């Protein structure tokens, strides 16, 4: 299997404080990987470092091309869509404008229009509300919109930061179902950061566990879910 993303010895800093201490991991093309860990372990920082939104050192390669020292907007153009924590919704714009913004780097106008229709098929609730201000959507709907906006890039890799945060359990199931479908049908490689380890392990095929800025465990998601020691010491369920 080919590696889509390869991260080596990633160290990240907030001012003088070091948040990541030499993280290395890789994502196989077409995989759905989850990055687990407690609050403050460095999950969000890892995603932000991939998109150069935090000062970092180390090597990050996407399809063999180095991403280091590129600007965030440049990295996005490689086909890396990042759904940030808090969803990053353009609240004062309409749902449809949010989707158009997701495709703002693309030039193929005709397929942008058809992609918007495809998103409405994935997420019917967005179609009902396409002229509404995005800020008026519920939390779950905004998360759907954030995922749809990211997909409008036609990404090769999608990074999701705590998509389950603040959502009702049923909505989370729904959302994770859709993520699985996107991964299988649209062949989008997904890296999802989660605190809800149980759910994330059901969804993912690969898993990494990080603690205080270091990878402490990696492997097949099923194996990690079935290993009681790991569950108790790192995942807390």
């Amino acid at each position, binding site marked *: 299997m080919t590696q889509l993303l390869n991260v080596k010895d990633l160290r990240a800093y907030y001012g003088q404080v070091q948040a990541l201490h030499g993280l290395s991991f890789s994502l196989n093309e077409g995989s759905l990987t989850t990055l687990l860990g407690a609050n403050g372990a460095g999950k969000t920082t890892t995603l932000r470092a991939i998109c150069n939104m935090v000062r970092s050192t180390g090597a990050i390669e996407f399809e063999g091309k180095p991403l280091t020292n590129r600007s965030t907007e440049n990295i996005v153009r490689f086909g890396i869509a990042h759904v940030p924590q808090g969803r990053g919704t*353009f609240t004062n714009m309409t749902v449809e404008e949010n989707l158009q913004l997701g495709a703002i780097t693309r030039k193929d106008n005709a397929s942008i229009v058809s992609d918007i229709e495809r998103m409405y098929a994935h997420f019917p609730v967005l179609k009902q509300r396409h002229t509404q201000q995005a800020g008026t959507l519920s939390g779950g709907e905004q998360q759907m919109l954030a995922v749809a906006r990211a997909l409008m890039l036609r990404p090769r890799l999608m990074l999701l930061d705590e998509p389950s945060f603040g959502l009702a359990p049923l909505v989370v199931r729904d959302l994770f179902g859709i993520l699985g479908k996107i991964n299988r049908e649209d062949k989008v490689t997904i890296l999802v950061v989660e605190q809800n380890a149980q759910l994330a392990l059901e969804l993912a095929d690969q898993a990494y566990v990080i603690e205080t800025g270091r990878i402490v465990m990696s492997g097949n998601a099923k194996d990690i879910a079935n290993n009681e020691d790991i569950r108790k010491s790192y995942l807390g369920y």
Partner: protein
Amino acid sequence: MELFTNQILAGIATGAIYACMALAVVMIYQAIDHLNFAQGEMAMFATFVSWQLMQWGVPYWGAFALTLVFAFAGGIVIERVLFKPLAKAPILTNVAGFIALFAIINSCAGLIWDFTIKQYPTPFGSAPFLGSQLISTHQAGMIGVTLLLLIGLFFFFQYTRIGLAMRAAAALPESARLVGINTSWMIALGWGMASAIGAIAGMLIAPVVFLEPNMMGGVLIYGFAAAVLGGLTSPFGAVVGGFLMGVFENLAGTYIPGVGNELKLPIALALIISVLVVKPAGLFGRHIVKRV
């Protein structure tokens, strides 16, 4: 009655200039969250450039177009050289930058073209508009140009990709970068557009106030006031605010005893304060609907 209509129309005509300046102010405010104190001086300098071009024999509309290009490019250069490095600096540093820019441009204009008052031509003529004694063709032209500008900006921001990208960059820079928008260039573009809009205001008002390095001082205050009145986040509000300012100023000067020409400005500003007490975001300021 005729005096009344007359004053309203004249007010709308000067209001058109305030509206233009207010549009420029709003453009910058949207892009960088600051008011650009040097906006008026940039407009004045561009107007001088157009005057110089005409002195060299370029016809009016040719000079007009060249000046817009110059102002647009100049705005971008100023942002790249002066304000991009200050982007993360505290507000006061930026304010100091604006004031420095104000002084530099003002002095340069004085140095190059000196401080004597110069005649400036109008492309619309100064005959009575449609045979009416109420407003001149130049005043009608100013109103027309302002409205065209507003409509143009509306379509630009609402229906073009680059307009959408600029709105996104202004609203949420981090999210904008995450969809691949180069927010830094969007800000530069905002500067360029604001500078060009200011140049239009300068060239329209120069026939009325005459051309000299301090011509925009008063206009900029009105432009700020109009922008604040209409809501700093709304181009439409800025234009309405500009027209309201012009009309109110004229009516107050004519009908309130003892106001006359000297007290017009304070009265108009007092009105704005009273409006803002009731509507702090301005008349058309953005009201963001959010679920809690």
